């Protein structure tokens, strides 16, 4: 269970990037976090992982995010960054995936099994000893997800996971994310992707929750999406009104 209560993030210049954000994510639930540029999605994700300071409460599996519990929270909350290049900094993919578990103090034998396991799950065993410099965008994304999965998090926070992906890699990512049993909060502009992967969507505008509901309903609402600085998914009705 992932609980967020009245979370606010203020930048040093006084700008309120996230304002009183409250939400619960139950086990295995996938929630999309949509919003225009500058809505506060990335800031919210970083705050939930304890990377930037925030006010309010974040509780993961009954552990509250604070300075004392930060290592416990890091074990439980996995973050997939928008740009996979930021996440792949070791000499090869094996070392990148092993980086997190090593920081948790896990022994090498278990790490080796865990790495192999995650590579197999994401069908990227062939990348094991490759350097990130030689991978395609889709492969990098999968490798970045593997680095997070290797830490066995209970919640995954993904920031624009479909960025830089071609349609085939995007489809592959959708299939993989649907298979994963983790609770997920996915920040995205890609609303058709959000609709396929997430049961519920939260629309963020100027750091505040602007709207929330079932993805299959709100993401098709032309008027609501326009007001949220987004563009609704096209259905027959939307197409007619546009014309």
């Amino acid at each position: 269970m992932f609980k967020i209560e009245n979370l606010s993030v203020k930048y040093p210049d006084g700008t309120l990037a996230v304002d009183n954000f409250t939400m619960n994510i139950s086990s295995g639930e996938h929630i999309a976090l949509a919003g225009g540029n500058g809505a506060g999605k990335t800031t919210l994700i970083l705050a939930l992982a304890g990377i930037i300071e925030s006010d309010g409460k974040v509780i993961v599996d009954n552990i509250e995010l604070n300075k004392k519990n930060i290592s416990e929270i890091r074990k439980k909350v996995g973050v997939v960054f928008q740009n996979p290049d930021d996440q792949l900094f070791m000499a090869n993919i094996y070392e990148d995936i092993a980086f997190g578990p090593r920081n948790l103090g896990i022994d090498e034998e278990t790490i080796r099994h865990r790495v192999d396991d995650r590579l197999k799950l994401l069908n990227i065993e062939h990348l094991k000893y490759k350097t990130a410099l030689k991978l395609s965008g889709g492969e990098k994304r999968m490798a970045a997800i593997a680095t997070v999965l290797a830490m066995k998090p209970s919640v995954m926070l993904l920031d624009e996971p479909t960025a830089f992906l071609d349609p085939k890699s995007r489809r592959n990512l959708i299939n993989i994310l649907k298979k994963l049993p983790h609770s997920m909060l996915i920040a995205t502009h890609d609303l058709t992707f959000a609709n396929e992967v997430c049961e519920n969507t939260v629309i963020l505008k100027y750091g505040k929750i602007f709207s929330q509901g079932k993805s299959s309903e709100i993401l098709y609402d032309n008027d609501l999406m326009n007001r949220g600085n987004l563009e609704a998914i096209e259905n027959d009705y939307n197409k007619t009104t546009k014309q």
Partner: protein
Amino acid sequence: MADIRSKLTEFYSLEQMSLKNTVIHKIHPFSKLISTIIYIMCVVSLDRYSFQSLSFYFFYPVITIALAEIPFKMIIKRVIIALPFCVFAGISNIIFDKTIIFSIGGFTLTGGVCSFITIMVKSFLCVASVLILIATTPFSKLTLQLKRMYIPDIIIMLIEMIYRYIGVLMMQADSMMTAYKLRSPYSKFPHIKDMGSFIGQLFIHSADRAERIYKAMKCRGYGTLHIKQIQKKRMILNDYIFMSVVCLSSLMFLITGGQLNV
């Protein structure tokens, strides 16, 4: 563009070697780390005129490179990069130290030339031994050993950051060079008038990128591992034998070289 990228791949190719499974790779990182430190200390402790004693010290790089199946060329290429710096450090010896060591016919060997050669050989051996350590031990395991040796966290972090920052800086330079060349098709390198802003922007962008990487590292538990949590892989007989052979023979060559420079 491809040049910087290929250089970067080459830069990390040495660490790629560390994933091999040879007899040297299997040796405990702690054993290799200690052996390398002792070996370097012995090499640098040799007297500046005793370059003939240094020849014994070639045993370590030659044997380990062969056993670890690392291409000699790979190590030599990287060592050569360090040598020009040693030339600058040692060149003054040739000028100022005119002590005659020996003379055969018309040829006289001065102390300056002798110490110059010693500096070059010492640098070669020290850099080679460190490169061998990197090529046979994953970087993360090395830093973990440093942590176990109670080296202050800040120093380990500094080593890790510098190591990773080189890649970040080169990748950023690569992207910026591409963008520059696309808009300046007749110049291979940034023009001198653009150099200031190019380098300035390079550092600003790469600092920004480095910060994002650091955030990604923190998200995966970086900096939260306490020394007591490190799983200690036990050293086995082979590890002790390797460490004893390297350390004792290095010390033996130093002593029999007879000129401990203390």
